[in-house]
């Protein structure tokens, strides 16, 4: 066998790792989740009870699916005005200026802050503000974690939006200006319609980030294993529940936690795949 074929073989063989790891993750999660799904069936997903007390054990994922989706969607809603303003600032109003590159660097720094540091900051700085505004007694809850999540996902929401906004052809903008359009009108009638799918994709990917965040949420959401009554009450997310309860888990509880990890894996995979799908259609 000549060296070229050996090299190709080696490249191919190593690339199999990605395939093995991906299928391995899915297989291990399904295998680990089996006892829980055998015990509860699909009721596991829609049951609102999470009770690890021995003898009266009962596990259901609904409060956590609900908490995860609500906190992440709320975070996205809070993030959109901030992220879109920043993108317009960087890629339109102050395009290619010093101030835009400083702003961009600072937004990038947000991505470098570890989740646990966001949690600390949320606990010691943001939470007292929430309490003093009278939004909740202790300051913990869905709303507090959503604010922190919104800050955390801003860099993911802006990086792709910046690119697609900057890529809108100048001819189109100039044509609109020559018809007497104001900048505001150019933004809403030319730039946003042109960059729409890229902007949507970047927000979907940002949502995917928020769904899987663990530490910051654990420290702020209040870890109440019930369906939250409103956005200011405490709740729990799937990731946060796993972090809290995995340590002492065994048997059916362990299996239930792995089942929750499997559901989380599935939800984030669907969200991310739809974001990537839109991006692939773009290019």
């Amino acid at each position, binding site marked *: 066998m000549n060296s070229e074929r050996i090299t190709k073989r080696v490249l191919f063989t190593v*690339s199999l790792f990605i395939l093995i790891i991906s299928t391995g993750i899915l297989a291990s999660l399904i295998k680990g989740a089996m006892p829980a799904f055998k015990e509860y069936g699909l009721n596991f997903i829609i049951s609102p009870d999470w009770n690890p007390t021995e003898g009266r054990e009962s596990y259901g994922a609904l409060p956590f699916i609900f908490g995860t989706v609500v906190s992440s969607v709320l975070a996205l809603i809070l993030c959109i005005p901030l992220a879109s303003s920043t993108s317009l600032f960087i890629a339109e109003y102050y395009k290619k200026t010093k101030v835009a590159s400083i*702003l961009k660097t600072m937004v990038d720094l947000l991505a470098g802050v570890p989740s646990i540091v966001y949690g600390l900051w949320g606990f010691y700085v943001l939470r007292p503000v929430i309490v003093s505004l009278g939004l909740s007694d202790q300051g913990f809850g869905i709303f507090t974690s959503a604010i922190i999540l919104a800050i955390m996902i801003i860099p993911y929401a802006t990086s792709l939006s910046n690119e697609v906004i900057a890529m809108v052809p100048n001819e189109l903008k100039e044509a609109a200006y020559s018809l007497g359009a104001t*900048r505001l009108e150019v933004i809403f009638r030319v730039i946003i319609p042109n960059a729409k799918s890229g902007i949507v994709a970047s927000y979907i990917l940002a949502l995917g980030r928020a769904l899987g965040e663990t530490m910051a949420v654990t420290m702020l959401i209040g870890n109440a294993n019930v369906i939250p009554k409103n956005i200011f009450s405490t709740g729990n997310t799937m990731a946060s529940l796993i972090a809290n309860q995995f340590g002492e888990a065994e048997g059916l509880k362990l299996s239930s936690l792995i089942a929750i990890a499997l559901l989380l894996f599935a939800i984030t995979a669907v969200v991310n795949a739809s974001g990537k799908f839109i991006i692939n259609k773009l290019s």
Partner: protein
Amino acid sequence: MNSITINKNISPGIEFKDNSVLRKFKNRLFKFIIILLSIITISPIVLILSKLIIKGFRQINIDFFTQVAPDTFEAMTAIASGDIIPGGIANGITGTFLIVIIASVIAIPIGIITGVYLYENPGKRYANLIRNLSDILQGVPSIVLGIIGYLWVVINVTNGFSALAGSVALAIMMLPLIVRSTEETMKMVPENIKEAAAALGVPYHKIIIRVMIPSSFSGLLTGILLAISRVLGETAPLLLTTLGSSFINLDVSKPTSAVPLLIWNFYNDPNMINLIWSSSLFLIGLVLALNIIAKRIIANREK
């Protein structure tokens, strides 16, 4: 405005309203809102960094880097007598380096070789599958990879919590980042360099090792540094795999501490609260330093 009044006479059915004042006002108001919201967007990073520096700076001294974390009793006595808390985070620093180095040793070769494979076989269906799978891997929440580290390594390999389990979880996080950055940088290598080497009869593996990798070296390095900085602050997967340790441990099959794990421990212990800020300052400084180096490399390359 005069010419417009003529227009009004020509088409009697359409009433013309001069709203240019309103339009200009809206335009300026919108710009003001954009600037205001942009300032709000960057204020958290300023607030976080200043909080960490103001509260954490006092605790950083030689001991901070050379001593292991104190136990809760030592911290309590120090607080009672008004001293700063003794000890440091040496067990966390060594643990973080151990875990991240092992993770890099696993992820970098596999990631680069897979990236080269994807670059060499752009249109193949199998290559597209690998590319999509690596995108999916990139989106897997870190806590799920913590469970994978537990199921694969803690249960089956080391029979207990271990640094290796954490490294495996972090390596899976780093892998897709390195794969994609390798493929993207390879695409930027001019085709004619490769052809020149091939024309000289250089064997295929030598083209990769001697031509492709050196000419895209800065790009590969950037990708690796960003991947490392991404996993350096990870807490959740380590909570499920390496567990933590109050000693300096360099045995990969034993429980090991890490800086983020120590922050988590300090946070949960009322006596240790003062140490969280200095540890966080150290961690964020490490992550940002790696980020800045990586960005510098990119900036130099683009010149």
